[in-house]
């Protein structure tokens, strides 16, 4: 490198920052000179240098990945989650400018609230001709069963969000309004949290408005709309589930605000009230923070094909028994045709002009506007008023002649379904891309929440930038990058240095009541149970695979027939334990002599049920379903397990010799997770479910191993090798040697692994704990009889305790196996399967399926 120190310090390329002609830029406006309020920040970056900024960018990505921040991509058949991407350069907005945005957003939210109340109330706007009826009636967001269901709240539109862009004159415009179930506030908060970690020095020196006040306001706002239990309402977050694109945020907000995360079938309507199905019974729900689209919320009255909703929900709303934010039907406000009428409606309702204008919009339902759009197709974007799956608009100037004619015909046929919008050239913002600062198109999503009689605006927001230089549109689906948004405090309103945010307790709860734990939904219980099971399965397979690899090395080294016989027994057991038949049980001789490929497949083939990769994937999926229940540290340990295994084994070019050390690391990861959960989870239903899953699965895996290795009779030399391998695989070799100080005997091994109640790796130990967990699970009050699952586990436990090694190893000389041992192990397995089934039936009530019944009595009319 020949650069002088000064040039090095200037290596982020501010001097080469090239904005597009005629496009406003956040940092340099139109003058190509850094704006004063950006100067401190840019100075700090220049001092840092590009290498350091890049280092911090990577650090940010690492933190986001570890925290499980993802954005799921629709239409991705792999159901893959995409890591959230964060640019280390925030969008800076001056305090003065923010004051205008703040006032503009509040005004718009108030206006939209008036419109919502009218559309679902007396419809005076339609009667007076202030809004054309077709514009409302033809919009899919107008849900007629919702008319008359608003609950006379001072404000019905609790949440509001707008996408803002800066136009070429430097003025902010509203691109669209989001009123359905606005997403992004959680991502904005997580972005800020990460920025505080990676740019602590800069955030200390530059005064930035904090976001926590907004989330306090959100908590208060949600408590405010409760119609019952106003002092201590139960709030739930209703999510479509982990495949939804913003599921991370649903879990994140639920956990941050202290609410229960639920899916539709976690709730039920009885007596016109909404109840949460928890392990402890039905719990009254007062407020729903809704992240399911409104038309999917009630299959009885809205979309009958919805599997995401709660049957009878709208009736509960109608009776004033539950409040929903936002109310069902509020997506009617997302109609882009409304934009054309907002200025008139602002004058009508507020006697004010709009502070934040909308992008110029012509609704084709009016003849003059339609003709204008048809004549100016080249200069406009054409949208349908109903948002479509492809989320698209058509840029008039990008269409072929034939497409244009087709579009014109469609507009003429049903003009009320179309709008034309001015094509905006959004301002660019500086982004850190390839070690340089470069301009990129940006959209700012802002967040507003009703707070009593007024609205509160998040001082900041979620900024998203296009990935490529020439992109004008910004979308997460297409892989955009996000930014933190810093609203700079003026000297007078200096907020002080950022403090770590502590808002884990619901803000409106009296401290004395904080000991209340949120109920565990039956769905969460189900997932916890399976987290436990997959965890143990993963560990058992990893340990056995490691043992097999050691034996394999021995065999290559010593080429002893005893080794190869023992290895064959172990390879068989690996197939049995993983249930990956035919595997090594296959009669083909190659599979035993050349086991490498099969062993590698069992490690890395994630599409193969029973493989380590598949078990790890299932473990992480189950854990992700209940993301809101895990501490940050615990989630990181989950993420690490999968991340490393995928990196090194699943996607890596590995040879069999490397597998050993990766397995060591995997086992350490599994143990870390177990340790973290046992150190952080309270001994309540959740813990009992996780524990039950673990104990059940550990017992099943162990029994399966014992059946595959010990039931068969071998020569003493082979037997010795097999027994040693079994002890090693169950982490019991050391304890065996300490306890027995002798040659390894089958009877002693059985004593230790099957019957010893004090040994945490024995079957009996698992069954004792499982029995304890099951008897501690909540059950219907007044039930004195033993439950079915209690009966089964007590029987399994007792049968084992009554067993003794001498009897179990009784054998006739001509038999190749120990029949008594086999019978006990088989019977225990059967009982444990029964336990798993009865637990599922008794506690996982969310899985009950519903069916639609319609009496269609049309076809028999008389002619």
């Amino acid at each position: 490198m020949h650069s002088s120190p000064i040039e090095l310090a200037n290596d982020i390329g501010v001097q080469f920052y090239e904005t597009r002609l005629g496009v406003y830029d956040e940092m340099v406006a139109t003058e190509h000179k850094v704006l004063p309020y950006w100067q401190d920040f840019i100075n700090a970056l220049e001092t840092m240098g590009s290498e350091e900024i890049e280092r911090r960018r990577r650090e940010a990505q690492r933190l986001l990945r570890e925290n499980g921040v993802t954005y799921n991509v629709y239409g991705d058949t792999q159901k893959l989650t995409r890591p959230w991407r964060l640019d280390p350069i925030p969008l800076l907005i001056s305090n003065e400018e923010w004051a205008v945005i703040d006032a503009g957003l509040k005004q718009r939210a108030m206006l939209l609230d008036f419109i919502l109340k009218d559309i679902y109330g007396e419809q005076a706007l339609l009667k007076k001709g202030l809004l054309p009826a077709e514009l409302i009636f033809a919009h899919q967001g107008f849900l007629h069963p919702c008319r008359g269901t608003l609950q006379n709240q001072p404000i019905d539109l609790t949440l509001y969000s707008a996408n803002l862009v800066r136009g070429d004159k430097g003025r902010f415009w509203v691109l669209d309004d989001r009123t359905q179930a606005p997403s992004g506030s959680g991502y904005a908060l997580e972005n800020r949290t990460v920025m505080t970690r990676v740019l602590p020095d800069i955030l200390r020196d530059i005064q930035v408005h904090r976001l926590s006040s907004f989330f306090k306001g959100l908590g208060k706002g949600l408590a405010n709309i409760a119609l019952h239990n106003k002092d201590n309402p139960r709030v739930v977050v209703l999510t479509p589930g982990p495949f939804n694109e913003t599921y991370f945020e649903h879990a994140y907000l639920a956990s941050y605000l202290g609410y229960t995360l639920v899916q539709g079938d976690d709730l039920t309507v009885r007596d016109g009230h909404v109840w949460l199905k928890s392990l402890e019974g039905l719990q009254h729900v007062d407020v729903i923070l809704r992240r399911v689209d409104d038309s999917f919320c009630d299959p009885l009255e809205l979309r009958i094909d919805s599997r995401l909703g709660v049957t009878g929900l709208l009736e509960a709303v109608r009776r004033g028994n539950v409040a929903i934010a936002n109310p069902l039907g509020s997506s009617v406000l997302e109609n882009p045709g409304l934009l054309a009428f907002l200025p008139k409606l602002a004058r009508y309702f507020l006697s004010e002009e709009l502070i934040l204008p909308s992008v110029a919009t012509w609704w084709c339902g009016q003849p003059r506007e339609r003709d204008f759009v048809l004549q100016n197709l080249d200069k406009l974007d054409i949208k349908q008023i109903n948002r479509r799956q492809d989320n698209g608009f058509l840029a008039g100037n990008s269409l072929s002649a034939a497409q244009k004619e087709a579009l014109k015909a469609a507009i003429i046929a049903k003009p009320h379904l179309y709008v034309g919008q001015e094509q905006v050239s959004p301002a660019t913002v500086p982004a850190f891309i390839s070690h340089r600062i470069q301009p990129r198109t940006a959209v700012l999503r802002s967040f507003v929440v009703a707070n009593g009689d007024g609205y509160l605006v998040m001082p900041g927001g979620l900024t998203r930038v296009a990935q490529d230089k020439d992109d004008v549109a910004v979308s997460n689906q297409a892989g955009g990058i996000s930014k933190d948004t810093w609203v700079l405090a003026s000297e007078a309103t200096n907020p002080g240095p950022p403090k770590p945010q502590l808002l884990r307790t619901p803000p409106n709860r009296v401290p004395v009541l904080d000991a209340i734990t949120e109920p565990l939904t039956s769905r969460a219980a189900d997932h916890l149970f399976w987290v436990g099971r997959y965890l143990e399965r993963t560990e058992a397979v990893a340990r056995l695979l490691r043992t097999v690899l050691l034996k394999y090395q021995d065999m290559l080294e010593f080429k002893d027939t005893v080794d190869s016989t023992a290895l064959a027994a172990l390879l068989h057991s690996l197939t049995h334990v993983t249930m990956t038949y035919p595997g090594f049980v296959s009669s083909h001789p190659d599979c035993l002599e050349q086991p490498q490929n099969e062993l590698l497949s069992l490690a890395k083939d994630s599409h193969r049920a029973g493989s380590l990769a598949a078990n790890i994937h299932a473990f992480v999926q189950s854990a992700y379903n209940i993301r809101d229940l895990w501490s940050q540290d615990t989630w990181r340990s989950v993420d690490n397990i999968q991340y490393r295994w995928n990196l090194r084994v699943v996607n890596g070019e590995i040879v069999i010799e490397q597998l050993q050390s990766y397995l060591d690391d995997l086992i350490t990861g599994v143990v870390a997770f177990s340790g973290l959960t046992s150190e952080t989870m309270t001994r309540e239903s959740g813990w009992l479910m996780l524990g039950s899953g673990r104990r059940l699965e550990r017992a099943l895996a162990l029994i399966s191993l014992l059946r595959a290795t010990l039931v068969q009779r071998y020569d003493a030399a082979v037997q010795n090798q097999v027994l040693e391998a079994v002890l090693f695989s169950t982490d019991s070799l050391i304890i065996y040697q300490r306890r027995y100080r002798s040659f390894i005997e089958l009877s002693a091994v059985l004593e230790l692994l099957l019957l010893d109640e004090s040994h945490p790796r024995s079957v009996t130990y698992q069954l004792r704990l499982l029995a304890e967990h099951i008897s501690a699970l909540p059950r219907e009050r007044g039930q004195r009889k033993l439950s079915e699952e209690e009966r089964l586990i007590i029987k399994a436990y007792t049968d084992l305790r009554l067993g003794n090694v001498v009897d179990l190893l009784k054998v006739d000389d001509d038999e190749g196996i120990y029949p008594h041992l086999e019978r006990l192990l088989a019977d225990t397995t059967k009982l444990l399967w029964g336990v798993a089934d009865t637990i599922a039936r008794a506690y996982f009530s969310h899985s009950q399926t519903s069916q639609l019944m319609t009496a269609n009595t049309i076809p028999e009319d008389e002619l």
Partner: protein
Amino acid sequence: MKYRITHTTTYNYSQAVGLCQNQARLQPRNFWRQYCGHSHFEIEPTPKDYRELLDYFGNRLAYFAIQQPHKQLVVTAISEVSLFPGRQRHELLPQSTWQQVRDYFQESSGQELSKQQTQALLEARQYILDSPMVTATPDLADYARPSFQADRPLLEVVTDLMQRIYSDFTYDPASTTIATPLLEVLAQRRGVCQDFAHLAIGCLRSFGIPARYVSGYLETVPALGKPRLVGVDASHAWFAVYIPDIGWLDFDPTNNKMPHDQHITLAWGRDYADVTPLKGIAFGGGQHSLSVSVDVLRLHSAVS
């Protein structure tokens, strides 16, 4: 004319249902041609939660939930209805052409309406637009076009359209289900009353005329000398058209007649989806089977 209607729906389940929520539009609404003096439900098992209300279209709606385990649900609606036929002599009123009606709605869009026009017109306006089961398409317009001759009075247009559907289409219960798309009905030229009503509605909407779906019953008259059988009647469906200054007029394309004194109206809406007589969501239940019986009994005749 006075009728008693008994409409019974029975669900049988192979396994117990733990919870079911239902909506019934089985109680006839009142309007100028019809008065329902008495109507009640008999539901077994007795619902713990039962409530009556009016829906968005003014139809009578009952919500009820069975919250205890059950393997059978029987819902019976019993109503007494009086019909007052012939109160309106629409053929004597001034006749608007179909173009006048279409333009009337197009031009008054987004304008302030006078008080008396307001509600009726606002309501009518939603029946011009596409609805869940009826979308206006070029195919429907093509089929309807022969009826829509220039400057023809709308009443004549609709009467002609009804007549054409009646003669062009074969009544065939085996040909369609609730889910059969309208275009398939059009292509097959077969269907049931519901399809014919949807078809006519789609044709009218394709020309900008408000049309709505009516669900109800039709009295069955036994053949001469045959005894009247109980419970063999059925639900029926037809359509209605809005004509400014006259109001809504009913047409039954299945029977090629304007409903008079044998059509009992239950409910109306944009299409079948708005007025499904009985729908419910059951949790559990395994396989279910369904049987329906309808009895329309003439109590006494006002005219004869």
